[in-house]
């Protein structure tokens, strides 16, 4: 259990944040604000969320995608950060564990995740 004062300090910062409900196995598109000199632009990063960890303001999620030449790219984003413009859930995955690190060892067709069928 966390201290109530730390919790209320973090809660005050996390108010009015519109974060969609997603978990590991979901395909997400993250819009990241990038500052270059004086210019600011938004870059999209799309991939499979393979882990969510941490709590409070320190909560982060890990997004894995296959980059050029089939090189796996993983990025860790803070879930609550002013640098994240938006998070869009594109596909819900059917998974049986909270951390999908086993995908790193799999290639091609084996590294797919089935879509979650709603009953």
């Amino acid at each position, binding site marked *: 259990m966390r201290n109530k004062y730390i919790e209320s300090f973090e809660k005050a*910062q996390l108010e009015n944040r519109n974060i969609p409900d997603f978990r590991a196995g979901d395909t997400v598109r993250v819009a990241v604000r990038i500052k270059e000199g004086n210019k600011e632009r938004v870059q999209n990063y799309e991939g499979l969320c393979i882990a969510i960890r941490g709590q409070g303001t*320190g909560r982060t999620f890990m997004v894995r995608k296959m980059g050029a030449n089939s090189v796996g790219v993983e990025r860790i984003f803070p879930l609550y950060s002013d640098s994240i413009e938006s998070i869009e859930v594109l596909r819900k995955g059917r998974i049986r564990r909270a951390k999908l690190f086993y995908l790193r060892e799999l290639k091609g067709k084996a590294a797919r995740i089935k879509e979650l069928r709603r009953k």
Partner: protein
Amino acid sequence: MEFIVEKIGMSRTVDVPSVPVTLLKVVETKVCEVKEDGKALVAYNSSKKLNKSIEGQQTKFGVSKEFNKFMTIEVAEGTEAGDLNPAALAEAAVVKTSLNTKGRGFQGGMKRHGFGGGPGSHGHRFGRRIGSIGNAEWPGRVQKGKKMPGQYGNTKTTVKNDVVSFDAENGILVLKGSIPGHNGARGLVRIVK
């Protein structure tokens, strides 16, 4: 101006760039007697310890039974006996915090002073030993202040931090960065600026 605080723990902000913060709770303090040199005798609550000398002090200054620990701290000008008001922390920009560091017990030279140590393998017996501690027949003794193994930690350390915010309602002071000591440690904050 000084205030007695208790370390709560650490967190972070979600701004860009994110700031690591330490939360401190200002301990409820009663001013007993204001002295001439800007200092005052104050009472605060610490454990349940009570004996006749503490009780005698409490009757003398008219403070209730919970305030069983007495201490002399610096106070603002014009402070009167009664509750110590921490409102001045709201205007503070920089504070110095004094706390005891985490006690690490009896430690060797490598951990305590950052000695290099020796190779762990290749037939060495040097390992984590401290090595030579002196010269020869002259001076024939070990230099004073030679760094050696011993008690490490649990010493008073003062650090300077920026103030991020102060919640007057709950008495929560938020500082940028870290401060010494374990969560729940008591210490003093002094307003620098």
